């Protein structure tokens, strides 16, 4: 029996980036309205594929992350009225997601400086959610053949913001937990330059990272690359990146470094040699010069 699949979608909702993305000076301008309408069609396609498929949508807003939609719990009390021309679950997703995004945007208000988007927070919440549904409470744990227990959970990150080097460590931690939970992380870079960390996230969890070149064909990209569960990807190929940036961010200034210095005890990365490791306070008394830490090239590309 074919198993249900779970999809957690994380939408980067940085107002500044979306404003930039909608500028007509871009080759393919993409406003958040068009983006949302295509995203909703994709979400509906996921629900359409199987009755038991579950879906969660998280939004990464400046300074906080919020749950926008969850197929297992009702978030708003006002269930949209039925109409004869649309399938109720689809309508529920569409109205809930749009309504909650609007509420969140209204709540942002005037700010001097926009805080960075809480992408990591959203990823972590998505992982917690997956952990909850893949390991149901002990009372029902025995029912192994229940089709509603998901088997290949996936996370799809739709990113528009550039890398935030200060979030290097939390992102790596999230990637490692995803590996443990056997969660595939897919990344679609909708706007902005390639992000190093998300490339690594997709690579390490066997997902696919796609840089959106033709932004007017967003929906086709989403459906062809991110709709299929992992079992289908063994039959119908999805694009994988051929080049991955493996660079890391240093722990001292949070810069992305090509060549770093690695503490020989705790493997912390620094952009310059230090006499004492700031993470584990390792002090090498045997060394004469200040190069206590071994230089280590972080620039590799994946074949």
């Amino acid at each position, binding site marked *: 029996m074919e198993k249900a699949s779970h999809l957690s979608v994380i939408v980067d909702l940085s107002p500044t980036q979306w404003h930039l993305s909608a500028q007509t000076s871009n080759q393919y301008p993409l406003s958040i309205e068009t983006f949302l309408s295509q995203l909703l069609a994709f979400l*509906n*396609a996921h629900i359409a*594929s199987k009755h*038991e498929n579950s879906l969660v949508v998280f939004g990464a807003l400046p300074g906080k992350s919020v749950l926008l939609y969850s197929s297992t719990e009702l978030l708003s009390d006002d269930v949209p009225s039925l109409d004869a021309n*649309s*399938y109720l679950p689809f309508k529920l997703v569409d109205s809930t997601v749009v309504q909650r995004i609007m509420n969140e945007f209204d709540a942002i208000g005037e700010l001097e400086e926009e805080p960075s988007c809480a992408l990591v927070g959203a990823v972590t919440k998505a992982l917690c959610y997956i952990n909850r549904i893949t390991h149901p409470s002990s009372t029902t744990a025995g029912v192994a053949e229940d089709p509603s227990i998901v088997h290949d959970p996936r996370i799809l990150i739709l990113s528009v913001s550039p890398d935030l080097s200060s979030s290097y460590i939390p992102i790596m931690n999230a990637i490692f937990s995803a590996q443990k939970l056997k969660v595939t992380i897919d990344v679609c870079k909708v706007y902005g330059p390639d992000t190093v960390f998300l490339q690594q996230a997709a690579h390490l969890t066997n997902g696919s990272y796609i840089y959106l070149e033709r932004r007017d064909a967003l929906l086709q990209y989403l*459906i062809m690359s991110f709709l299929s569960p992992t079992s289908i990807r*063994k039959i*119908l190929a999805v694009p994988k990146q051929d080049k991955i940036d493996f660079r890391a961010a240093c722990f001292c200034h949070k810069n992305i470094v090509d060549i770093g210095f690695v503490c020989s005890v705790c493997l912390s990365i620094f952009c310059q040699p230090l006499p004492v490791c700031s993470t584990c306070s390792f002090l090498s008394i045997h060394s004469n010069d200040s190069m206590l830490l071994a230089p280590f090239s972080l620039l590799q590309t994946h074949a």
Partner: protein
Amino acid sequence: MPVQSLQNTDVIVPQHTPHPLLPFLQSQSQTTLTRLYQRPSSCLSIFRLLGPIERQLIMNLLWLESALSVATISAWVLPEGKDAYDSALAVMTGLHIAQNSAVKLALNPTFKSSLRQAITGGGSTGSFGVPTDKDGKRQSANIENLDAYALERWETILHYMVSSGQGQNPTKPSQGVLYLLQRSGLMNNAHGPALQITSSGFQFLLHSPHDQLWNLLLQYLHMAEERQMDLVEVLSFLFMLSTMDLGREYSTEPLSETQKAMLEDLRDYGLVWQRKTSSKRFSPTRLATTLTSSSPPLPSSHSTGGSHTADGTGAVALSSGAAQQGFIVLETNYRIYAYTDNPLQTAVLNLFITMKYRFPNLVVGMLTRESVRKALGNGISADQIISYLTTHAHPQMRKNNPLLPVTVQDQIRLWELERNRLKSAEGYLYKDFASQADYEYVLAYAKQLDVVLWENASKRCFFGTLEGHANVRGFIERRTGSV
């Protein structure tokens, strides 16, 4: 090397058994199907019945305006998945969803626009059912009542079947249901006026409720064809029901005459609920709304474990797991403890176990040679018994690996093999050959044709199949003629 072997099994392409409805749809004409595809709800439901590869292919093609060349599409397919891809494509063309010429592949335009409409909403086809306004005077049926109603109807049918052979007199389902059971060959009246369960009926009882439901509906569809009902209307009504929301009331106004007539039949099967026969509104039950899913169509057959009933739309997905709990404990000493007070489950178990004791919530029995042979004699196979025990195993049993004791599984299979000691085949015995050389010469020829079933060199005779007889006889005649 356990890790290695685990990874290997991962690579195996997931097997998807096609839904029983698909062959029926494939046998329909292209015009019928195209008419069916005009309704978005039908497209959505059919889409869900398809296998995962078909679904992904359809989605890939759905938003494209022009046809894609076959070469481009096959570039997506990994070498290991070639067979699966080919069969998926065959299913799609069989259903006329895809138009496959030698070089281009595109979706059926009707199907494409309807499925697009289903996903984006809008249009004015009204194919997802017209809901009625809240009625202030009467409270609409809540989900609990609907579940109870569906369960009661369904179990009446099954219980009638299971007890028909035992001289009991359970409540009879309606005339329409009886006719359907008889038509589908699940029951017949070969021995006297009363309907008796047949061997396929016994097998039917051990299937999952979802399979049982579709089995009956398929028969209904065949019957609809004979009753001159418009198949498109019948099918689209079923698909419409499957996309409706549980616990709501829909209006009967926009339904066609055929569909109104169907309401009556479906009420008997427990798929829809109506306050009165003349009521202008109806509610689908869980049997109907889960038609295109694999979640259990019936909330729970336990009346004792009723605490798990779903209490809202949101809770359904999570609680359906609890509702499916099994109740059977099977020990290595062939003893079965079934925690149930449901007469239907007891009756089904009684098909293949010898009952020992009955308590208010517990039935104890033994799997014995006699009881299993009785079941085998009724046409139930060993695999069906084992799969029934597996699907209904008690949560405590789930801790065991393998789930059922191997000794018991093997013994059930051995009891089945016992019955298969004799194998019969129709054919011809060739004997009284004049010389050993003659015999060997003919035998060698027959062996070449692969028609020899049995041979005995000392008696100079062999037994060939019916199909090979003409050839072998001709060979012998040519030989005797030439001598």
